[in-house]
C-alpha cells in the first residue's frame, strides 16, 4: 500500500506545527525541572487555563493578540502565586512529593475549569483566516503562523537566557543553586520567576492551540503526558533537547496517523519514550553516566 508522497509532505508540515506547539509547552516544563527539581504535573492544565483565559478575552474584546497577551500575563502571575504558596515549602524534599502535590493541583484546576466554564469546548477564532495551496490541500495559514510564533517565543526566550541579566541569573541558579545564592542572586525569586515564565509559555500554547482543537477542561492531560515524554526523551533541563524531541515525536505521530487511527498514533510517542529509557535513560542528549 503506497502512501502518496504529498500526503507524507503534508504530515511533515503538520508534525512540525504540532511539534512547535509542544515544544513551547515542554520548554517550560524542562526548565522548571532543571532549575528546581519540580515535575509539574499540572503543566498541561496551565495550558488549558491559558486557553480559557484567551477564549474569555477574545469573547469580550474580539482581538486574538490581546487574548494571547492577556492569557500569558494572567497565567504567568497565577503560576507565580501557585509556586510561592504550594511549591516553595516543598523545596528540598524529594521530587516525588512535588509530583504528588502538582498532581493534586492538577485535579483541582481541572475541576475548577469545569465548574467555571462548563463541559463544552470553547472556540477561539484564528486571527488569520485563509489558506494557501499546499499540493492538493488548502493549507490554513494559521497553522504556519502558530509554528512561527512558537519558534519566535522560544527563540526570544533563548536569547533572554543567553544574554539577558535575569537570564544569566536563571542559568546560574540552574547550574549551582548554592553558589548562585552565595553570589547574591535571590534564588527563591528566580524559582518563582522561572515557574511564571513556564506558565506563561504554556498559556501561550493554549491560546495558539485554541483555534486548532478547541479548549476543553481536560485537554491538559494530553499535553502533560506528551510534554513529560518530550522532557524525558530530550533530557530534563535541556532546552534544545526538548525542542528537538518535540519535533521528532510530533513528526513520528503525524506519519503514524497515516497508517493507524489518531487515537492509536499516540502509542508512537510512548514507544519512543520506552526505547529511549531502555538505551539512553537520561535522554537523547544528556550522556548517560556509566
Amino acid at each position, binding site marked *: 500500500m503506497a502512501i502518496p508522497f504529498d500526503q507524507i509532505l503534508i504530515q511533515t508540515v503538520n508534525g512540525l506545527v504540532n511539534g512547535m506547539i509542544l515544544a513551547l509547552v515542554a520548554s517550560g516544563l524542562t526548565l522548571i525541572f532543571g532549575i528546581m527539581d519540580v*515535575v509539574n504535573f499540572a503543566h498541561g492544565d496551565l495550558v488549558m487555563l491559558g486557553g480559557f483565559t484567551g477564549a474569555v478575552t477574545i469573547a469580550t474584546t474580539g482581538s486574538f493578540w490581546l487574548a494571547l497577551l492577556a492569557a500569558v500575563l494572567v497565567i504567568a502571575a497565577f503560576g507565580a502565586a501557585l509556586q510561592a504558596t*504550594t511549591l516553595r*515549602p*516543598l523545596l528540598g524534599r*524529594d*521530587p*516525588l*512529593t512535588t*509530583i*504528588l*502535590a502538582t*498532581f*493534586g*493541583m492538577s*485535579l*483541582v484546576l*481541572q*475541576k*475548577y475549569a*469545569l*465548574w467555571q466554564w462548563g463541559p463544552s469546548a470553547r472556540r477561539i477564532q484564528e486571527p488569520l483566516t485563509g489558506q494557501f495551496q499546499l499540493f492538493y490541500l488548502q493549507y490554513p495559514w494559521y497553522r504556519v503562523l502558530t509554528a512561527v510564533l512558537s519558534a519566535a517565543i522560544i527563540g526570544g526566550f533563548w536569547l533572554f537566557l543567553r544574554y539577558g541579566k535575569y537570564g544569566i541569573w536563571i542559568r546560574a541558579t540552574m547550574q549551582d543553586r548554592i553558589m548562585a545564592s552565595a553570589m547574591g542572586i535571590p534564588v527563591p525569586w528566580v524559582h518563582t520567576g522561572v515557574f511564571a515564565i513556564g506558565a506563561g509559555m504554556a498559556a501561550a500554547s493554549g491560546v495558539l492551540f485554541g483555534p486548532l482543537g478547541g479548549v476543553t477542561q481536560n485537554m491538559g492531560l494530553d499535553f502533560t*503526558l506528551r510534554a*513529560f*515524554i518530550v522532557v*524525558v526523551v530530550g533530557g530534563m533541563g535541556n532546552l534544545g533537547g526538548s525542542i528537538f524531541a518535540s519535533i521528532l515525536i510530533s513528526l513520528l505521530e503525524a506519519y503514524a496517523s497515516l497508517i493507524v*487511527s489518531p*487515537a*492509536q498514533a*499516540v*502509542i508512537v510517542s*510512548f514507544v519512543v*519514550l*520506552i526505547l529511549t*529509557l*531502555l538505551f539512553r*535513560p537520561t535522554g537523547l542528549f544528556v550522556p548517560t553516566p556509566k
Partner: protein
Amino acid sequence: MTARRSSTAYWTGFAVVLASLTIAPLVLPEFWRRFVTEILIWGLLAMSSDILIGYTGMVSFGHSVFFGLGIYGAAAALLSVKPPNLWLALLYGLTAAGLAAVFVAYFSTRLRDIYFAITTLVFSQIFYVIIFTWTAVTGGENGLTFAQPLLSLPGLWAARFTPETLHWFVLGVVTLSYLLLRRFTQSPFGMVLQAIRENEPRTRAIGYAVERYKIVAVMLSGLFAGLAGVLYAVQNKFAAPDFVFFLVSGEVVIFNVMGGMGTLVGPIAGAAFFLLLREGVSRYFTEYYLIPVGIIFTAMVIFMPQGLLGFAKRRLNQ
C-alpha cells in the same frame, strides 16, 4: 515489654475492626453495605501499591494496569467458560496482572524515581489505548458485562453469592492478603525493601541484590492489585477501560498518601477516608467534589505527608 503491650493492643484493635466489618452487612442499608465492600476492594489495591510506594519508595502510577488487567482477566474467564467459575476468574486475572508485573518489574530495575513514575504512567496509558481501541476483544468504550460466578469449592458445593456472602468473601480475601503482606513486610525481606527506600546505594554497597528485591516487590504488588481487580469484577459484573486510565492509579496514590505510606493499614484507611469524603462532599458539590478534596489532598502532601495514620501514630506516642 512495650513491644508485648503494643502487640496485644494491635491485635485487639485488629479483632475489633474485623468484627465490625463482619457484622456490617447485616446492619447497614444496601447502599452502605456495597460501599463498605468497595472500600475493602480499593483498600486492597491501595495496600498492594503501598508495597511499592511506601515500603520500597518507588512511586508508581501504573497500578491501574494491574487492577484493570485483573478485571479484564476475570472477565475473560467468566465470559469464555460456562458456567462461570470463580477460581478460573482468579487464575486468569492473576496471570494477566502477573505478566504485566513482570514487564514493569524489568523497567523498575533500570530506572530510578521520577523516570520510573513517568514510565508507569505511560504504561497505564498504553494499556488504556489498547483496551479502548481493541473493541473486538475488549468491548472498547462500552466495556464488558458478565455474570457473577458462583461461590464454589470445586467438587463440594456451589451457591449463589448473596450481598452478605459476597462481602464476607471479599473481607476474607482482603484480611488474608493483609496478613500475608504483613508477614512479608515484617520479615527481613520487608526490612531490605525499606532499606532500599531509605538509601539505595548504601543497601547495594552492603551487598544486597537490590534488583532482585525490586522485582519481587513489583511482582507482589502487581499480583495483589490484580487480585483486587478480580474481586471488583466479581462484585460489579462489568469491566470498562476507565479502570485502566491512569487516574485510577492517581487515586490509589492519593489513598496511600492520605492514609499513611508504609503502614499497610494506612492505605486502607486512606481509601476509606477518601471515599467517604467523596460521598459526603459530592452531596454539596456534585461533580466538583474534586475541588475541595483535591485541595485537602495537596494540603496533606505539604503539611501531613505521613498521612492520617502516621499523624495519629505520632499523636498517640506522646
